[in-house]
């Protein structure tokens, strides 16, 4: 059994994240990669810096792994999220899930990334070609309900 949640400042090696969840029992191993895209909402992006409330982000990532294990009976989940300055195409997050069967592996992978985006206190500031920088607000407005 492998469950791991970590915040890192160095580049993520996807092969290493896959290895964390590969076992003799797991006939399905899924890797989700989030990467910095060049165009967001029609604006040319040159890079992103990721910031976090690190202690809480670590706690929330660990909670997501623990809840995923309880909810899906999947013992093998790894989440690695990068912080700091990233260039276009660099990997910002890697989520690996191992399970004997693919249906559960797909369900867990999707659930983990959606939970991460909903509740882990990480923020990103996009850098644009014109030299400006802006914090991204995915909600487009202030959120008034605490995630539960």
């Amino acid at each position, binding site marked *: 059994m492998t469950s791991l949640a970590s915040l890192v400042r160095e580049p993520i090696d996807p092969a290493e994240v896959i290895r964390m969840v590969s076992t003799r029992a797991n006939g399905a191993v899924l890797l989700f990669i989030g990467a910095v895209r060049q165009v967001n909402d029609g604006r040319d992006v040159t890079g992103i810096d990721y910031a976090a409330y690190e202690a*809480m982000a670590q706690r929330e990532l660990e909670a997501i792994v623990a809840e995923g294990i309880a909810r899906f009976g999947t013992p093998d989940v790894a989440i690695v999220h990068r912080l700091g300055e990233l260039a276009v195409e660099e990997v910002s997050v890697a989520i690996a899930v191992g399970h004997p069967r693919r249906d559960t592996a797909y369900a867990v992978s999707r659930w983990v990334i959606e939970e991460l*985006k909903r509740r882990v206190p990480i*923020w990103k500031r996009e850098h644009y070609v014109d030299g400006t920088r802006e914090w991204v607000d*995915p909600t487009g407005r*202030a959120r*008034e309900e605490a995630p539960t």
Partner: protein
Amino acid sequence: MTITLLLFASYADALGASSLAIELPRESTVGDVISALRSRHGAERLPPTPLVAVNERYASLDSVVREGDEVAIIPPVAGG
């Protein structure tokens, strides 16, 4: 009593600080912490009821805070 208030990302930029010490009467709530912040320059850029965490856990505005608590105002998260 004194609590530590943490600000991040766009909220830290708005208030020009990432950490503030806030003096409050005992039995104050998270909502009182937000109210105490309102007089500061830049606070008008915070939403009316921002998302808040107390000691690294999401908390409601009516949660009571205690001496030494770490209260964080959480901008809309954008991980992934």
